[in-house]
């Protein structure tokens, strides 16, 4: 067994593994020593925010259909087709009523030419009145929903990048959910406001021909709606809500923005957000203002009216400003949201976990203390119980922890508080393999074998058992890794690493040390 040459090769391999592990761990201890990355700490250890958002993809579909209805209205007007009613019903269907053969023929032509993508759900005639229901085919609808989630993710990523968070993690989770992890963030309310706001900027005309008070009582004219603007009275700190009657039709959106930035109003010394349109946006804005001079144009953000100034003259140059008693921070966040663009649909926060930095530091401290105390107790116990052989097992144990740390750094895995618990648990369980072997060796020596024969027999007989016993823990850990989230995943990682590392140290490393003493140094007695 184990010729000298064989032993040196094994020693070389073992040293290589240990040195690689140490190289990976070094940056975590002192970053300047080696440029590799540090061990990632989970949000529960370094503090931060974990959010799961759900994109209301149905709203994105409704938005698309609303736009299509608007297009149908525009095309109908151009083609002189007159309809009795044209509405979006049940969220994602368009219902149209037409009277007279001319109108019906004209509309059919229009439908064939411009709106081939629409599916005809039902078509019924009652006298000379035709009722049509249209919608989008499922594949198209699914595509729109998927696009909405993708686009929302990109938009949120943009916003967070501009907000300035180091190493954010933003990813899909399932079909319409987005996972956002922001390590080290302190002002969680601001971050949530920034991520969660839709930031849909719209310009709409006020409906000045109808009575606002009548509308508030419920008599809302068709094509108009009541929206509110809120202002805080700086003297009384009361929030005042002002209703406005605005036309539903959106004249211009923030889609044509090129830039949005915070500026300070020189007159009132108040921050506002100035926006620049691109060429098309600027042209549209000019056309709209020209056609509506002396009318009031409402600036609507997420269905809230920020201001509704009277258009004095045609505005060229494609610039506008949004005012509304902002603090500098609010204005800055609004500018970020506008620059990053609107979310294609509203998002809802489904899950939030925030850990303050002080708690994270506490957790690290307590975790490390438990690890040191637990580790020390085990180390002492092994020396007392197995003497010199216990020392070998302890050496293996310490290497074990280094290997786990090296594995964490090498795979860029995340260390969490349950992850630390996993390492602690591994410390307790890792000695198991050595205990199994040592007990076996003791048994073999009791029946009169020489140390060398006893060690050989001990390792040979215990190896398979150790392998198998660890497979079960590995199965549990791998299943956990697959199904676990966040902190629990961290536990699965350290537990799996711990199992693998303890197999390596118990079956290869301690064996090698025994062989070295018994074969190469020809030691005749065994302290076990």
């Amino acid at each position, binding site marked *: 067994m184990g010729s000298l040459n064989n032993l040196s090769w094994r020693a070389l391999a073992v040293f290589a593994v240990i040195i690689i592990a140490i190289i990976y761990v070094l940056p975590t201890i002192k970053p300047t020593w080696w440029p590799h990355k540090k061990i990632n700490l989970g949000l529960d250890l370094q503090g931060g925010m974990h959010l799961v958002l759900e994109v209301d993809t149905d709203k994105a579909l409704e938005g698309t259909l609303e736009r299509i209805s608007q297009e149908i209205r525009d095309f109908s007007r151009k083609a002189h087709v007159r309809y009795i009613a044209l509405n979006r019903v049940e969220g994602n269907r368009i219902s149209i009523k037409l009277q007279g053969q001319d109108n019906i023929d004209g509309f059919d032509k229009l439908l064939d030419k411009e709106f081939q993508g629409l599916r005809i759900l039902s078509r019924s005639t009652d006298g000379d009145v035709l009722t049509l229901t249209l919608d989008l085919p499922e594949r198209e609808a699914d595509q729109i929903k998927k696009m909405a989630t993708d686009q929302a993710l990109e938009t949120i990523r943009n916003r967070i990048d501009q907000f300035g968070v180091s190493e954010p993690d933003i990813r899909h989770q399932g079909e319409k959910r987005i996972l956002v992890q922001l390590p080290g963030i302190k002002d969680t309310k601001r971050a949530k406001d920034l991520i969660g706001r839709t930031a849909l900027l719209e310009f709409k005309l006020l409906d000045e021909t109808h009575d606002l008070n009548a509308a508030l009582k419920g008599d809302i004219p068709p094509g108009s709606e009541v929206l509110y603007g809120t202002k805080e009275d700086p003297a009384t700190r009361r929030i005042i809500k002002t209703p406005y009657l605005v036309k539903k039709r959106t004249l211009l959106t923030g889609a044509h923005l090129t830039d949005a930035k915070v500026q300070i109003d020189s007159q009132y010394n108040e921050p506002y957000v100035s926006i620049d349109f691109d060429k098309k946006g600027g042209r549209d804005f000019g056309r709209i203002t020209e056609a509506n001079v002396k009318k009031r144009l409402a600036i609507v953000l997420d269905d809230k009216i920020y201001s509704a100034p009277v258009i004095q003259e045609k505005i060229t140059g494609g610039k506008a400003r949004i005012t509304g008693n902002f603090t500098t921070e609010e204005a800055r966040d609004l500018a970020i949201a506008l620059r990053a663009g609107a979310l294609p649909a509203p998002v809802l926060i489904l899950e*939030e976990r925030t850990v303050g930095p002080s708690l994270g530091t506490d957790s690290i401290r307590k975790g490390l203390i438990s690890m040191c105390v637990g580790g020390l*107790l085990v180390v002492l116990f092994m020396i007392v119980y197995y003497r010199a052989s216990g020392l070998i097992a302890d050496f293996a144990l310490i290497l074990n922890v280094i290997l786990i740390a090296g594995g964490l750094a090498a795979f860029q895995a995340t260390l969490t508080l349950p992850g630390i618990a996993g390492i602690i648990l591994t410390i307790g369980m890792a000695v198991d393999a050595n205990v199994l072997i040592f007990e076996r060796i003791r048994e073999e020596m009791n029946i009169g074998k020489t140390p060398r024969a006893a060690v050989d027999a001990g390792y040979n007989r215990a190896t398979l058992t150790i392998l198998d016993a660890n497979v079960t823990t590995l199965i549990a850990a791998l299943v956990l890794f697959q199904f676990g989230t966040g902190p629990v995943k961290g536990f699965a990682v350290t537990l799996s690493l711990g199992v693998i590392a303890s197999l390596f140290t118990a079956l290869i490393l301690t064996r090698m040390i025994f062989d070295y003493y018994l074969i190469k140094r020809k030691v005749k007695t065994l302290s076990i």
Partner: protein
Amino acid sequence: MQFIKPGINLNFVGKRKIAFMLSLAMILISIASLVLHKGPKYGIDFAGGTLIQVKFDGPVKLADIKSGLATINLGKSSVQGFGEHSEHEYLIRTDRSVMTEQGFSLEVQKTLASSTGHGVDIRRVEMVGPQVGKDLREKALFAMFYALLFIAIYISGRFELKWILSIVMAGALMGAVYLLSIFNVSVPYLIAAALMVTLFLFWFLELKYAMGAIVALIHDVTITVGIFSLFGKEFTLPIIAALLTIIGYSLNDTIIVFDRIRENLRKYHKNPLEIIINRSVNETLSRTILTSLTTLVVVLTLFVLGGGIIHDFAFALLVGIVVGTYSSVFVASPILLAWNTRGKK
């Protein structure tokens, strides 16, 4: 040093009737507790809701916190001390889960500061919506299910090296699960059904070692869950992780005893099984106790020094290790014996 002298021969197998009664009693108590509490008590991970961990900079009265919270609309809420008493930390829980949006934690902070007269640090906020809670519950159950599935397949082949049988097992289990999933059976029933199928297959294919191991495993998990329920502790994601670890640990112990039994069966095949089993348990006793001891020591330090967040997790592991060690000696091996005496009749 040696705790257990080499020639030791305690009569474990002879005590199996007492052990059996004890296990049965524990399991019945566990089930009774679960039934009385109307199932496991779910933490916010699974039930949904909001949890806020606050730390005051001085001693405060629980009543002051409660009166402060009463002024803001929290819904059904509860307050309890958390971690070390000297750290003045409290956990506030509510079943509502939608209000973290508008500067909610700031509001809590202000209210509590004025009602208690102490500085407040909001250390942790966890909000889980009802939908996510339901998803996580399902995910956790699936994790348990798959762990059981893989382990059942592994141990069916592992003990008697009948890997073909284990493929049959895998096929039969997958088939049964597939059949049930067609009928849209909920996950808890799926787990129960998979366990039944597993037990039946082990019995039918005469996989006695696998049978002993899986019974010990069910025993351990049931009692751990039962004790958790008895102490009124909450089930959260980390607790599920602890349960899975216990499954692995319990099997680990059982495998080692069973391996020794099979080894001794070859060596002393003329002896009656009862003596061989008892001998094997005694021979591995030293190792069983040592490993449990070292593991218990580290988990105990985690339990005492690890802080409030990891407290329940460590508690689950403590219970699981004790029960798992007990079961590998007193449950798994006697089942082997019960199997054989039944076969002879």
